[in-house]
């Protein structure tokens, strides 16, 4: 399991423009970091770089003693707007698939659905879910398959006050169990965090 995340002097270029350079961060087990910055500053891109989906222009990303290849292949969760859920499939089908894909079992998927109060929604097609319900469905795989590092992209925005609260306590539990969180946000998270601000 990932116990450390280090970003050293990272620089990222997109479409010819240098988004940022010299960004560094060290995150230890039990720590969360709020990644802030104006629109287009590269928050999502940095998360994607940590997930290995885009390549840094300079600098390095390390996961302590975990091999980067293993870290990205099953050591972290990446939750973004583009949730990959198919509108025409039912919530139950999507939850079952993604939790199995992430290494969870039927039982953990069921437990996640219960924790996120998705059970009455499972028979609905994804397209019928409200924005907050859909986000909860995306989040269910965080619980269904435990992984060390959570990369979250604006995780709380479509949730109502109660669910922000609940999700805050889920994040606290994850940290207490030695997890790490790196979350791109515009509003502060309901947990204590380090902070990393990208320049405009």
């Amino acid at each position: 399991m990932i116990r450390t995340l280090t970003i050293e002097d990272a620089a990222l270029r997109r479409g010819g423009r240098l988004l940022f350079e010299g960004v560094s961060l060290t995150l230890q087990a039990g720590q969360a970091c709020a990644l802030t910055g104006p629109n287009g500053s590269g928050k999502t891109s940095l998360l994607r770089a940590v997930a290995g989906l885009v390549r840094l222009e300079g600098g390095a990303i390390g996961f302590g003693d975990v091999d980067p290849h293993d870290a990205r292949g099953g050591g972290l969760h990446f939750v973004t707007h583009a949730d990959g859920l198919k509108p025409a499939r039912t919530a139950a089908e999507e939850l079952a698939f993604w939790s199995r894909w992430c290494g969870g079992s039927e039982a953990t998927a069921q437990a996640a659905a219960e924790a996120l109060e998705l059970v009455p929604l499972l028979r609905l097609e994804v397209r019928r879910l409200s924005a907050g319900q859909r986000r909860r469905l995306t989040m269910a795989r965080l619980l269904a398959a435990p992984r060390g590092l959570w990369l979250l992209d604006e995780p709380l925005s479509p949730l109502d006050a109660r669910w922000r609260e609940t999700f805050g306590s889920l994040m606290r539990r994850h940290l207490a169990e030695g997890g790490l969180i790196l979350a791109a946000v515009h509003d502060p998270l309901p947990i204590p965090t380090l902070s990393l601000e990208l320049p405009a």
Partner: protein
Amino acid sequence: MNRLVALLARETALAWGRGGGPMVAVAFYAGVATFLPLAIGPEPTRLAAIAPGAAWVALALASLLSLERLFERDYEDGALDQLVLSPAPLELTCLIKCLGQWMANGAPLALAAPVAAIGLGADPASAPLTLACALLGGLAFAFLGGIGAALSLGARRGGLLTAVIVLPLFVPPIIFGGGALDAFAAGLPWTGGFALLGAYALATVAVGPIAMAAACRNALS
């Protein structure tokens, strides 16, 4: 392993919903078998002569037109990101995706092909060979189509690119399979063409996933 089985099930279901499945295959061939006599006139001898070939070409076209979007949807809605972030090697994932596509589209079409051919008046004795060719050919088409679909990810005019990349690659299996069917109908030895078709299909299954995975990684980064 577990996750690959889950992926296969999902891909099959998606391809099925996207316009595949046994019923579509039946509908498609029912269309071919109905339209062709209506369009070219119902003289039985004329029809019987072209029946296996027409079924075979219809298979290639159906594969071509349904494969274009194999990766596009997953790419645009973020599912591809999640598929990459997994212990399963991306090559295997791509292989499973094509296999799912083949199971939902190619295999039912292949099963329906001999029926359609016979319905058009082909010699029933040619049915096993038609089926075998369609199964192998469908596999080759699915993996070739997958390569095209992955290569055209993120490109403007994706569909066009797929067609241009993939069509030339479709020609050899068409020749091999058509040759085998023709030889069989003429009572000539047909194993040569058939063996070549099998070899080609296996080669695409072996090489295709590597090309697809590389193309997907490239499109994402």
